[in-house]
C-alpha cells in the first residue's frame, strides 16, 4: 500500500517533530513494514515556479519542427518581474495557460542543470516543464501530450510549484500482511500512526449518514452469507466528463493507481481513503432491480477488461434483469459500466464474504484492488459511510444531485467478543504487563474491553476481522508495548538425544568420501522423460515409475527423479565443460519412488488425527529413500614429478561404495550384473546378503554420449538408507595374536570368466581359521597361462592365536585352501 504523507496527516495530527524516519519506523514496529519511501522532489532543486503564458509565437524550423517562442509571466520569481522569454517545443497550450516553469539555476532529475542558452535564434531563459521531466508519471496533470497545463485557479505566477505538484510530499510504501487488511487504506495507516504517537485521530469513516428508505434503487440479496450488507446510493445529473481535480489525480497516482475518469476515480479514491471497495453503475443501463446471487452453471459475463468469462456456480454475482453485471467484489461487467455519457449513477458499497471473493479471484485469475481487500477482510460496518463519501464527492466534483433514495440491505455482523485471562499477554510474551496496561492497549487499538474478574471480555473493532482468538489479542498488546521490549531468556531444556545414529552415520559417509577425494554436489531433483531415454532405461524399468509436478517450472522437466544419476552427470558435464578434466562427484539426496497409492486426505484441524487418519497420510506420502551416488572422470591419482597419474574408472566407482560400506561397518558383496545405464561388461551389483542395494561401474558409451560426459566415466548409485540400516553401531574390539606370522604366496590359474571374488572366497574357506588375511596382488593374462585363462596371485598370511605355527601346519592350511579353490573354481596352481 502506497500513500502520500500529506494524505495520512490529514487524518492524524502528528506532533511537528515527528520525522519521516521516526514515523515509518514506528509503523514498522507496529506491524506495517516499510517497503520504501518515494519522494519525487528528492532530486529536484528549484527555482520551479508557476507561470502564465503571455505570448506564444509558433516558428517553423528548417528541420520541419515547429517551436514556440513564448513570454511567460513568472511574477517576481526571476528577480525582475519582467516576462521570461522561453523556447518551447510542445504544442498543447495556448496564451493565458498556467504552466510550470523551471528557471535558470534549477537542477532536474538526472542532474539536468537549467541555464539560459541560445537556441533557435533566441535566448531561452529556462524551460516550461512536462511531467516526465520532473520525474512524475507521464500522464500526471494531463501532461501526456506535452507540458503540464494547470487549472487556472491552481495558483498565481511566481508561486512555488512544489506544493502544487505534490513534489516534496513523500509517498510511503508499506507491506501489509494478510491480517492487517484495514491498513490497505489511509484510514487504517493514519489510525496506526495515531496509535504509535498517541496523536489525535480523526476517523474519515465517522460521518453522519442518511437513514435507509425504500426510495432507493431496488436491491435483492439472495445470498446473505455471501453478501451480508449491500448499500446502494444514487446520484443524478452527474457530469461524467468533468475533469478529475489534480489533487485527486495526484493522490491516485501516488498510491499507484491510474486516473481514468471522474466517476471511476471517485470510487477508487474512496477505496484508498477508507478501505471499502465501491462500484459505480450507469443507472440508465441497469435493467430493473439489482440482485445478488450465485451463478448458475454455464452462465457468462464480459468483465470490464473485455474478457468473456464462464462462471462457476460458486461465483457470487451482481445481476439485473439482463443477467450478470459483475462478479461480486472482484470485477464489474462491461454492459453497465460508467462512461463519458453517464449522468445517473448507482453506487454499490457492499460487504462480501472473504472466501467467496478469494475463490472467484483465483478461479478467474482476476486479482484486483477490490478483491485484494475483500479476501483479506474489509470492515463490514463501512458500506454506508463509504457510499456517502462517494456521493459527496460526486456532488462536489461532478455537479451531481444526491438522490433521496438510500438502499441498505442486510446489516453488519455483530462484533466478535473474545475473552482472555488478563495475564495471558504477560504469560505468552514473557513481558511484565498488568491488567490495566492490557486494557489500555487493547482500547488504544480500538477494542471495547470489559473486565470480568481475572478475565477480560474484549469486543474486537469492526475493522479487525482477523482478531478472533485470544492469542490475536496478545499480539495486539505486545506490539503496542513494543516487540523490542521482549527480554532475552534461554528456556530450560531437558537432556536430548543428540544426533540420531542415522544422522551421525550420514555425516560419516560424507566425511569418508570427501576424505577420499570426492566432492559433494546438490542437484535439482527435476528430470524429464528424456532423461530415462538418455540413461537407456528399458520401458519396464522401475525408475520410470514416477510422480510428476502439475506446475513444473520447466515443462521439459516435470518429473521428480527416481535416480541421482541425471543430476550428477549434468554437474559432471558442467565441470568438464569448464575445463576441469578430473572430476569426482558425490551426492546424497532423496529420490521419489511412488507406489501408485499417492492420494492424501485433507483432514480436519479441530483435533488431532486419529490413528487411522494418520496412517492414511503416511501411506499416501510416497517412499523417498536417500540415495548415494558418485561419478568420476579423468585422473583419480595425479601425474607429477613422482610419475604417471592413474585414470579413474569403474574400479573407483565400486571402490567408493566399498569405502563407504567399510566406514559404516557393513559387509557388501559385489557381483557382475548388466543393467542400464552401465556398460554391460563393467557393471557390478552391490549386495547386502541377498538384497541388491545398488550398482556401480563404467557408464555405457551411449550414455556418456547422451550426457556429453567423457568416455569411460564411471558411476555408482546405492540406496543409502539400506546401507545405514545395516551399519554396525558398536564395533567389537579386536583380538589379535602376537605369535609370528607365516606367509605363503599362491598363484592360481582359472578360466577368465571365474570371478576373483569366488576364488578368494574358496581360498578363505579352505584355509580355515589359521588364515589371518588374504590379498590378491597380481592378475596375469597372457601366453604363459593360455587363451581364455588368467592367473591370480594371492598373498596369504597365517597366524595362530596361541602358538608359533610349524611349517607343516602352514603348508597344510595352504594346501587345503588350494584344494577348495580347485574344487570350486577349477583353479590350477601355477607352476
Amino acid at each position, binding site marked *: 500500500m502506497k500513500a502520500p504523507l500529506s494524505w495520512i496527516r490529514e487524518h492524524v495530527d502528528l506532533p511537528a517533530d515527528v520525522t519521516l524516519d521516526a514515523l515509518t519506523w514506528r509503523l514498522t514496529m507496529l*506491524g506495517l*513494514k516499510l517497503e520504501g519511501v518515494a519522494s519525487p522532489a528528492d532530486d529536484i532543486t528549484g527555482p520551479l515556479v508557476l507561470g502564465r503564458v503571455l505570448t506564444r509565437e509558433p516558428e517553423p524550423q528548417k528541420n520541419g519542427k515547429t517551436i514556440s517562442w513564448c513570454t511567460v509571466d513568472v511574477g517576481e520569481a526571476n528577480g525582475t518581474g519582467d516576462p521570461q522569454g522561453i523556447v518551447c517545443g510542445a504544442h498543447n497550450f495556448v496564451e493565458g495557460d498556467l504552466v510550470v516553469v523551471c528557471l535558470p539555476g534549477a537542477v532536474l532529475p538526472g542532474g539536468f542543470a537549467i541555464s539560459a542558452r541560445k537556441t533557435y535564434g533566441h535566448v531561452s531563459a529556462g524551460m516550461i516543464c512536462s511531467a516526465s521531466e520532473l520525474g512524475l508519471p507521464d500522464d500526471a496533470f494531463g501532461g501526456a501530450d506535452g507540458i503540464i497545463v494547470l487549472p487556472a485557479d491552481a495558483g498565481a505566477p511566481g508561486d512555488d510549484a512544489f506544493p502544487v505538484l505534490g513534489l516534496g510530499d513523500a509517498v510511503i510504501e508499506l507491506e501489509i*500482511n494478510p491480517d492487517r487488511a484495514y491498513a490497505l487504506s489511509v484510514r487504517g495507516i493514519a489510525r496506526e500512526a495515531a496509535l504509535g504517537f498517541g496523536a489525535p485521530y480523526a476517523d474519515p469513516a465517522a460521518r453522519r449518514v442518511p437513514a435507509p428508505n425504500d426510495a432507493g434503487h431496488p436491491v435483492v440479496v439472495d445470498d446473505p452469507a455471501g453478501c451480508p450488507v449491500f448499500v446502494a446510493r444514487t446520484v443524478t445529473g452527474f457530469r461524467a466528463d468533468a475533469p478529475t481535480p489534480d489533487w485527486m489525480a495526484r493522490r491516485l497516482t501516488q498510491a499507484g493507481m491510474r486516473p481514468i475518469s471522474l466517476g471511476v476515480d471517485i470510487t477508487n479514491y474512496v477505496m484508498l481513503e477508507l478501505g471499502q471497495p465501491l462500484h459505480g453503475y450507469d443507472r440508465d443501463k441497469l435493467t430493473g432491480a439489482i440482485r445478488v446471487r450465485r451463478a448458475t452453471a454455464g452462465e457468462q459475463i464480459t468483465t470490464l477488461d473485455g474478457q468473456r468469462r464462464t462462471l462457476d456456480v460458486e461465483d457470487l454475482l451482481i445481476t439485473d434483469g439482463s443477467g450478470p453485471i459483475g462478479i461480486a467484489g472482484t470485477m464489474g461487467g462491461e454492459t453497465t459500466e460508467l462512461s463519458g455519457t453517464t449522468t445517473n449513477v448507482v453506487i454499490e458499497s457492499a460487504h462480501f464474504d472473504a472466501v467467496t471473493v478469494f475463490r472467484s479471484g483465483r478461479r478467474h485469475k482476476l486479482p484486483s484492488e477490490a478483491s485484494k481487500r475483500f479476501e483479506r477482510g474489509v470492515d463490514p460496518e463501512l458500506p454506508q459511510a463509504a457510499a456517502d463519501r462517494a456521493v459527496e464527492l460526486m456532488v462536489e466534483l461532478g455537479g451531481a444531485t444526491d438522490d433521496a433514495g438510500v438502499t441498505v440491505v442486510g446489516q453488519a455482523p455483530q462484533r466478535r467478543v473474545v475473552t482472555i485471562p488478563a495475564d495471558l499477554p504477560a504469560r*505468552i*510474551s*514473557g513481558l511484565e504487563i498488568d491488567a490495566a496496561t492490557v486494557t489500555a492497549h487493547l482500547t488504544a487499538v480500538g477494542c471495547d474491553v470489559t473486565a470480568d474478574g481475572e478475565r477480560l471480555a474484549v469486543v474486537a473493532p469492526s475493522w479487525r476481522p482477523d482478531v478472533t*482468538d485470544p*492469542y*490475536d489479542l*496478545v*499480539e495486539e498488546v*505486545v*506490539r503496542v508495548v513494543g*516487540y523490542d521490549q*521482549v527480554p*532475552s*531468556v*534461554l*528456556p530450560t*531444556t531437558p537432556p*536430548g538425544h543428540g544426533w*540420531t545414529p542415522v544422522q551421525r552415520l550420514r*555425516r560419516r559417509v560424507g566425511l569418508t568420501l*570427501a576424505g577420499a577425494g570426492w*566432492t*559433494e*554436489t*546438490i*542437484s535439482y531433483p*527435476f528430470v524429464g522423460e528424456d532423461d530415462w531415454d538418455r540413461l537407456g532405461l528399458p520401458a519396464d524399468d522401475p525408475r520410470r515409475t514416477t*510422480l*510428476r*509436478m502439475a*506446475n513444473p*517450472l520447466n515443462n521439459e522437466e516435470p518429473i*521428480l527423479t527416481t535416480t541421482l544419476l541425471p543430476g550428477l552427470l549434468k554437474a559432471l558435464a*558442467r*565441470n568438464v565443460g569448464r575445463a*576441469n578434466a578430473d572430476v569426482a562427484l558425490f551426492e546424497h539426496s*532423496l529420490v*521419489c519412488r511412488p507406489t501408485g497409492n*499417492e492420494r*492424501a*486426505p*485433507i483432514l*480436519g*484441524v479441530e*483435533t488431532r488425527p486419529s490413528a487411522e487418519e494418520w496412517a492414511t*497420510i503416511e501411506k*499416501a*506420502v*510416497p517412499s*523417498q529413500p536417500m540415495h548415494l551416488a558418485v561419478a568420476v572422470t579423468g*585422473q*583419480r*591419482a*595425479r601425474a*607429477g*614429478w*613422482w610419475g604417471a597419474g592413474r585414470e579413474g574408472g569403474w574400479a573407483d566407482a565400486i571402490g567408493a561404495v566399498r569405502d563407504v560400506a567399510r566406514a559404516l561397518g557393513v559387509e557388501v558383496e559385489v557381483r557382475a550384473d548388466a543393467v542400464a545405464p552401465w556398460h554391460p561388461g563393467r557393471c557390478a551389483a552391490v549386495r547386502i546378503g541377498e538384497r541388491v542395494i545398488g550398482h556401480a561401474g563404467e557408464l555405457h558409451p551411449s550414455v556418456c554420449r547422451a550426457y556429453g560426459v567423457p568416455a569411460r566415466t564411471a558411476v555408482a548409485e546405492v540406496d543409502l538408507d539400506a546401507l545405514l540400516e545395516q551399519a554396525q553401531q558398536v564395533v567389537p574390539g579386536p583380538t589379535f595374536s602376537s605369535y609370528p606370522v607365516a606367509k605363503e604366496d599362491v598363484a592360481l590359474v582359472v578360466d577368465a570368466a571365474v570371478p576373483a571374488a569366488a576364488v578368494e572366497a574358496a581360498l578363505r574357506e579352505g584355509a580355515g581359521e589359521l588364515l589371518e588375511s588374504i590379498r590378491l596382488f597380481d592378475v596375469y593374462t597372457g601366453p604363459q597361462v593360455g587363451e581364455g585363462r588368467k592367473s591370480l596371485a594371492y598373498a596369504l598370511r597365517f597366524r595362530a592365536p596361541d602358538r608359533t605355527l610349524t611349517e607343516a601346519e602352514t603348508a597344510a592350511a595352504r594346501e587345503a585352501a588350494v584344494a577348495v579353490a580347485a574344487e570350486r573354481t577349477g583353479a590350477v596352481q601355477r607352476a
Partner: protein
Amino acid sequence: MSGPNSEYDPVEVTSLKSEEVTAMRDAALAAIAGARDLEHLKQVRLDHVGDRSPLALANREIGALPPQARKDAGQRIGQARGRVSQALAERQAVLEVEHEERMLVEETVDVTLPTDRRPVGARHPITSFSERIADVFVAMGWDVAEGPWVEAEWLNFDALNMGADHPARTMQDTFWLEPADAALVLRTHTSPVQARTMLTREPPIHVICPGRVFRTDEIDATHSPVFHQVEGLVVDRGITMAHLKGTLDHMTQALFGEGISTRFRPSYFPFTEPSAEMDMVCFVCRGSGRVDEALCRTCRGEGWIELGGCGVVNPRVLIACGIDPEVYSGFAFGFGIDRMLMFRHGVADLRDVFEGDVRFAQPFGVEI
C-alpha cells in the same frame, strides 16, 4: 697350507718372531688408518684380519712351537690381533659417521616440490553449514528432526492453520503434484516436519529441522526453486516469546560471535501468533552500517540483516497436532540456510550452490 705338525719340530718359526708380528701388526694398522671408506675398510679387514691374513696364518703356526714357546708367541699374536681389531672398530665407527654425513648431504631433495598426489574432496557447504547450525541446538539438548520432500498438503498447509482458502497459501508458490486429487506438494517450508514431530512425540519438544524446500521461483542470483531452510520448534509448559528471543540470541552469537543479537518486528504467519520477523545485528559492521567510512556491503548500511520469521506457535496448530494449548505453549522460527551461507561467506550468486562446480564446494572443505 701349513698346520700343526707334531713330527716336525723346528725350534723356531719365522712368522712368530717378535719383530715379524710387530711388522704385521703395523702393516695392518697402517692399512686401517689408510682406509678411505667403508668399502675400502671391508677389504682391509679381509686382508689383515681375515682367514688368509698374515696374522691369522701366523696364529695357526703357534701349535708348531714347542710348548714352552707357545705361551709367548700366543701372547704376542693375541696382543697384535687385539690391537688390530680395536683399530678396525674405531675406524669403522669413524667411517660410518663420515658415510652418514655424506649421505645426508647427497640425499638432499627439493622439499618445495608439489606433493598433491591425491585429489582433494569436499562436502557441500550447505550440508556442513546445516550441521553446524543444528550442532548449536544439539548442544542445548535439542533433537534434529527430518521429513520427506514430497509431503501431504494437509501437513504442509492445513495443519499449520493455512486452510484451502487462506490468502497466505498463494504467497508460497507451491509445486503441486499430479494428479490433482493426490493432495501432495513439494514441501514449501520445513514446517511440516514440526507438525510431524508434534503428532508423533509428547511435549516437551525441542527440535531443530534443517532441510530442502521447494517453491516455484525462477532461478536467478538470489532465487532458486530449490533451497534450504532450518526451523526450530519448542513446545513445553510456560514457553514465551522471551524464550524465543533468548534462543535466537544464543544462536546468532554461536554462529556469528559475541554481541551479535537479534531484534523482532511484528509480522504475520498463519502458524504463529504473535508473529515476528527477526533481524540480527550485522556481524561485519556490528550495527554501525559503515565499514572504513564506506557503506557496509553486507547489510547495505542498515546495520541489521533480515534473518527470517518466528513467533509463538498458534494454538490452532497445537490443537490440530493434538497438543492442549491450555497446558502447553511453544515457539517456532525459521530462516534460509542458503541465504545465511551467502551473507556469512560472501557468496554472490545462489546459482553456484546448485550447479555442482567443484570450485564452489572445495574451499569449504569438510566443515564450516
